[in-house]
């Protein structure tokens, strides 16, 4: 049994596997499959200042080895999250990461400030959600936008702050450096890549929103590349995600420089994906005689 524990921004995780924001709700549904205490942590559905109803359906499309979604940040709003979801989650013996978003930096800061007085372990600021028309994309795709939202959220909370980056940018490493300079304790990446599918029989986009965020195994090599570039550019810990669906993928992502990983689409394919990934990682490390998963973080030997 290898030591799977990791530390990110001062927070201890019993293992590095975290269901990604948006696929796991607030954990209630998956508790019907397995105990949430087996997970390293949980990143909750993106929460905004007010309740949001999200986009019209269809909100999902299949792609070769992947999927598109256009949920559009549907959530009950921060007050209800704190009163109805967080107390339950805090009892699950796993690290709880509150994923937050907003249409303006001020909204993000307001949400972060409300979380500051709760027991939540970490805040993950989504500056990249490409689904909401006036949302993340507007400030998450430039260094100035990313800096300004990080600065104001940083001032609103003392909680460990993870900034979740958008891959829909020219140079993700420079955005990572910009948010590090504003006091982010960690960065997580990648959020979904903007995509589109058209039903050729009707000539209509499959998603009612026309475009959506792509994720799943198809994006994995892009995510590995971006995590590697970012890990080389910053000194804060990186949480890697995008297309991870096996223990081997998780190991690869950590070799690229991730201190922990998140799993999204793979949970939609297989509800047990996170627990299987934990078991497979452990098996791989044992086979290789590696005592701690921490040894593999950033261990890639580039040519």
């Amino acid at each position: 049994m290898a030591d799977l524990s990791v530390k990110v921004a001062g927070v201890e995780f019993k293992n590095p596997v975290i269901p990604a924001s948006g696929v796991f709700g607030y954990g209630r549904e998956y508790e019907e499959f397995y105990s949430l205490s087996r997970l390293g942590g949980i990143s909750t559905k993106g929460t905004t200042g007010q309740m949001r109803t999200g986009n019209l359906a269809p909100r999902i499309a299949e792609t070769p080895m992947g999927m598109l979604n256009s949920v559009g940040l549907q959530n009950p709003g921060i007050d209800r999250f704190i009163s109805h979801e967080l107390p339950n989650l805090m009892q699950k013996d796993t690290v709880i990461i509150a994923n937050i978003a907003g249409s303006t930096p001020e909204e993000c800061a307001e949400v972060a400030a409300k979380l500051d007085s709760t027991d939540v372990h970490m805040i993950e600021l989504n500056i990249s959600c490409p689904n909401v028309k006036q949302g993340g994309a507007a400030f998450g795709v430039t260094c100035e936008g990313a800096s300004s939202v990080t600065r104001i959220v940083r001032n609103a909370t003392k909680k460990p702050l993870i900034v979740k980056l958008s891959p829909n940018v020219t140079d993700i490493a420079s955005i990572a450096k910009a948010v590090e300079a504003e006091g982010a304790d960690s960065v997580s990446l990648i959020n979904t890549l903007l995509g589109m599918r058209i039903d050729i029989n009707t000539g209509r986009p499959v998603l009612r929103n026309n475009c959506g965020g792509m994720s799943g195994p198809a994006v994995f090599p892009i995510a590995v590349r971006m995590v590697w570039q970012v890990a080389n550019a910053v000194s804060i810990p990186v949480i890697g995600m995008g297309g991870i669906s096996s223990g081997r993928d998780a190991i690869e992502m950590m070799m690229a420089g991730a201190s922990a990983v998140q799993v999204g689409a793979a949970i939609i394919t297989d509800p047990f994906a996170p627990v299987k990934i934990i078991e497979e990682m452990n098996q791989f490390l044992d086979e290789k005689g590696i005592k701690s998963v921490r040894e593999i973080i950033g261990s890639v030997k580039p040519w």
Partner: protein
Amino acid sequence: MKYTQGKYILLEKKAIAKQIYDFTILCPDIAQAASEGQFVNILPEGHTLRRPISICGIDREAGTLRIVFMAKGEGTQKLADTPKGANLDIVGPLGHGFAMNEVSGKTIITGGGIGVPPLLPLAKHYGSRAVVILGFRSADAVILKKDFEATGAEVIICTDDGSYGVHGMVTKPLEEEIAEAGQVLSCGPMPMLKAISAVSEAKNVPCQVSLEERMGCGVGACLVCACRVKKNGEERFGHVCKDGPVFDSKEVMW
């Protein structure tokens, strides 16, 4: 633990009409927990998204489930190609099914096309207290007629082109039967469900409809299967996989 995921053996498979397959799957734990109107989410090998398929029969003693589905696109075609004896990766039982209320009048069970399979367990339950009205495109698309007749319910078949049974839509016989009905239970394409609800609501007969939407997780976590519903006068997004697939017709915003 309410949900189960596993690999289950395909015991029997038959093609019962053009592109329509009838599977019997050995999955005792899911069969034990399943109820009328629920569905299972099946993963076609190599795909990212599971395919939601309604439960058409539950045999708790044998530990089997029956599903009847159309090979429509790539995923369902792959499921249809599964050889007998091979495994199917299934999550279930899922969703909020039909409320099996006891009513004083007749129970009308109605629907059409590939929406018909989940109605069979309802006909079994209500037997001779039910009238079953099924609609199909044409005679060669008619499925499960004998199965419905074996339940003891009165069965009326309609076809769009008149090649079998009543010529026209299910709402035609429904208009006649509704006067003596205590409730209507339905599943089929949206326009049909909308018409069925209108007929039922006009006579104040409670009506339950089983809806379809594209799904991801199937358990209520990913929020992709949204549908607009109205509850206590308040409009919101419901989720077909968890709040449904069966809804009170009055809640649905057509």
